[in-house]
């Protein structure tokens, strides 16, 4: 098939990936890379590069809205970004050293784990103000259900920091946003309210991805004609997903999505082991 057709097909596929990712909160990256690598037979490195760029795109888009609505906690985000960006550089560096087969296997494991994570229960208890949370000015408020500002504090910051390094490394290595891991770190480990975790994670993702992007660019992982339709498709898809989110039955979607991801993960492990990737 000629280039135009190919681009269009990729655009459509990326749109679907962005749509599903946004509807289920699992993110487009985890769908995108397997789809490109297995379905479209794109070299895994180009797939990761394209996914990384589109991750930046979707993150920048939604970040603005969340900050405006007062959910994201910028200080927490910035502080943890130190860990994620450092991790991202480590991950990207690893990506250039590790054979693609291993990357594929790691990817599948992360896929499976994200599915597991998405069904998890969220930490409900609020944490009282504590010295470190105060010292690092991480306490904050967010608009509660009744419209009143709800106060919260943060705990286990070092645990969160360490996890964020891992999240950044995964992002740099696999070209995904690692949103799920970031939310895990904030929600479960640091006991930050869920809505704050997800929105803060959103704006952190773009910064993290940018950290690994530079290395990818220099190593030639970014193939412009491939990235263009992917980026545009994913952005449109996630915008659509955000609009549809209100009207959709998320739970059943999530189950379908998880089955799909599970299948993709198995496929990837197989390809990785067989050396097909």
């Amino acid at each position: 098939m000629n280039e135009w057709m190919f681009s269009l097909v990729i655009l459509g596929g990326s749109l679907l990936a962005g749509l599903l990712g946004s509807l289920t909160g699992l993110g487009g990256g985890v769908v995108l890379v397997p789809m490109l690598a297995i379905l479209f037979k794109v070299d895994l490195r180009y797939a990761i590069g394209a996914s990384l760029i589109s991750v930046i795109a979707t993150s920048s888009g939604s970040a603005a809205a969340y900050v405006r609505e007062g959910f994201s906690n910028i200080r927490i985000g910035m502080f943890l970004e130190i860990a994620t960006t450092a991790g991202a550089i480590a991950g990207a560096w690893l990506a250039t050293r590790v054979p693609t087969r291993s990357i594929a296997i790691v990817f599948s494991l992360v896929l499976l784990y994200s599915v597991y994570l998405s069904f998890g229960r969220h930490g409900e208890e609020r944490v009282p103000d504590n010295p470190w949370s105060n010292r690092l000015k991480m306490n904050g408020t967010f608009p509660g259900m009744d419209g009143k500002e709800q106060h919260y504090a943060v705990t286990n910051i070092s645990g969160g920091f360490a996890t964020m390094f891992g999240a950044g490394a995964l992002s740099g290595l696999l070209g995904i946003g690692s949103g799920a891991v970031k939310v895990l770190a904030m929600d479960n480990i640091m006991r930050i309210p869920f809505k704050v975790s997800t929105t803060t994670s959103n704006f952190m993702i773009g910064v993290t991805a940018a950290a690994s992007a530079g290395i990818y660019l220099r190593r030639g992982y970014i193939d412009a004609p491939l990235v263009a339709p992917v980026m545009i498709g994913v952005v449109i898809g996630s915008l659509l997903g955000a609009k549809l989110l209100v009207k959709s039955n998320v739970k059943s979607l999530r189950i379908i999505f998880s089955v799909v991801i599970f299948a993709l993960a198995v496929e990837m492990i197989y390809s990785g082991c067989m050396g097909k990737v």
Partner: protein
Amino acid sequence: MLLSVAVTFVGMSLYLWSSGPVHANYRMFGAGSRKLFDIGELLPNLLHGNPIALIQLGILLLVATPVARVAFLVVAFALERDRMYVAVSGLVLAILLYSLIFFR
């Protein structure tokens, strides 16, 4: 403070949008045009109207967006006289710039 940050965020997003969609229309028709990303070659290619260079420019702008966002935050924190977070965001900015410019 939130307002200034929000404004810059919105500005960044719009900026990003303007560079995104343009590029699909400039896609070249023809196989085997996989040019490698070379910053040095970028400017002359652009001036020649090379469509791939245009896409590459768009990608560069996109990657620059979060970096600019962090830079804006450094300024915003400075304006709020929050020295601790000027340092924090400054550190993030340094890490970002390091990865983009110096890392081998």
